[in-house]
């Protein structure tokens, strides 16, 4: 399997903005394994030349798990080929991308059922069974 370290050594044909992010991902993986602390990288705050974002996405690849969320537009939550490295893409109701993040974590928070939703669901179930 390709390793991030292996990818690091690969040639980057663009403007050099992908390699620093991969380095940051490696540091974040180390932090996750050592301390359990998660990291979120907001890709909107980084400069990308033409094709570099797509290059980053292709480099990280696709892993075993992906999910689609329907809330205020759709969101795609996908584990990359590197376990613990998640690619999150939020879209609005017009299907425009409004946020792209890399989350280095065991489970992205947004995948978990939230207490407020669980309680609201329980109340609905109660109503239904009356």
């Amino acid at each position, binding site marked *: 399997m390709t390793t991030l370290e292996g990818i690091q050594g690969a040639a980057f044909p663009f403007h050099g903005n992908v390699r620093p992010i991969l380095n940051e991902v490696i540091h974040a993986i180390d932090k996750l394994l050592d301390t359990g602390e998660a990291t979120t990288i907001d890709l909107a705050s980084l400069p990308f030349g033409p094709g570099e974002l797509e290059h980053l996405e292709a480099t990280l690849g696709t892993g075993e798990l992906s999910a689609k969320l329907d809330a205020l537009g759709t969101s795609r939550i996908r584990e990359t080929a590197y376990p613990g490295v998640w690619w999150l893409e939020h879209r*609005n109701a017009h299907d425009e*991308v*409004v946020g792209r993040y890399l989350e280095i974590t065991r489970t992205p928070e947004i995948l978990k059922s939230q207490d407020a939703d669980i309680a609201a669901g329980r109340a609905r179930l109660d109503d239904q069974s009356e």
Partner: protein
Amino acid sequence: MKKTPTVGEILQAKGVSRRGFLKYCATTASILALPPSMIPRIAEAIENARRPSVIWLSFQECTGCTESLTRSASPTVEGLIFDAISLDYHHTLQAAAGDQAEAARHAAMEENDGSYLVLVDGSIPLANPGYSTIAGISNVDMLKETVAGAAAVVSIGSCAAFGGIPGADPNPTGAVSVMDIVTDKPVVNVPGCPPIPMVMTAVLTQFLTFGTLPDLDKHGRPMAFYGKTIHDRCYRRPFYEQGRFAETFDDEGAKAGWCLYKLGCKGPITYNACATTKWNSGTSFPIESGHPCLGCSEPNFWDKGGFYEPLSTGKFDSGERLAGAAAAGVALGVAAAAAGRRKQSKFAKEG
């Protein structure tokens, strides 16, 4: 003040799930240029925020700024405008007209005295106030009357912030900026021609979320977006460092995506966020399309020499560089804005 629902209550009433709310908060953090670690604080603040009243005044302008805002790709902008803020007056967007519209403006001012936001696009003609009037009221009178009870004023676009195109030489209408007239209220400048929608949204969102104004630079611009130059974050920067420049728009250097400095790029002295936020839902920005930065978020950019003349010809840079004038906190930011304002008026006189 009438009791308005909190944003949390509004979202709940709309059936937005907690997950949806988390998504909203994540994108809000992005919009506010805050680290993702701030998301829990943002969530708490947004839940309890009450929607502020906003009065939008349009003076000598081309409506490009409104166009820009209403095309904002923020997930919240349609919600922000119609749910999370109460847009009580806007010539272009409101249904009311004439006396009815003016009555709505007065009602919003009375009901929200001391707490409403005034947004302005367009410059204000002073040579003859009759050049631009609304309901028979001159722009300068309407501005003064409306800001009297406001919490703060946001100048949207380079015309409201610095005079813009109407103020360009020979300035036939005697156009001035909002901060030339409003001197006793905090003024946040969101320049750009037009400004980046996300920046406009960010100022509103911060006010809505935390009830505060952003930290400002010496020109009254939010540091989070105008704190770095286009050049600082330009993806062509490695070519600049290597001395690889396009010499014409169709030479090999241009085709290879080299630096546009010699074609007049003003990126090195232009403070704006285009290089990362980009335009049209993050698709691209001028430099990515092969055109140099014009410096549209800098004061008086129209009168600073040719767009295609390199900076090294010395015409653009008026010595108005930011020079590390980072403003910390709102109070200091406002002071810095006032200092910038003095400088700006001086500059306008000299220019």
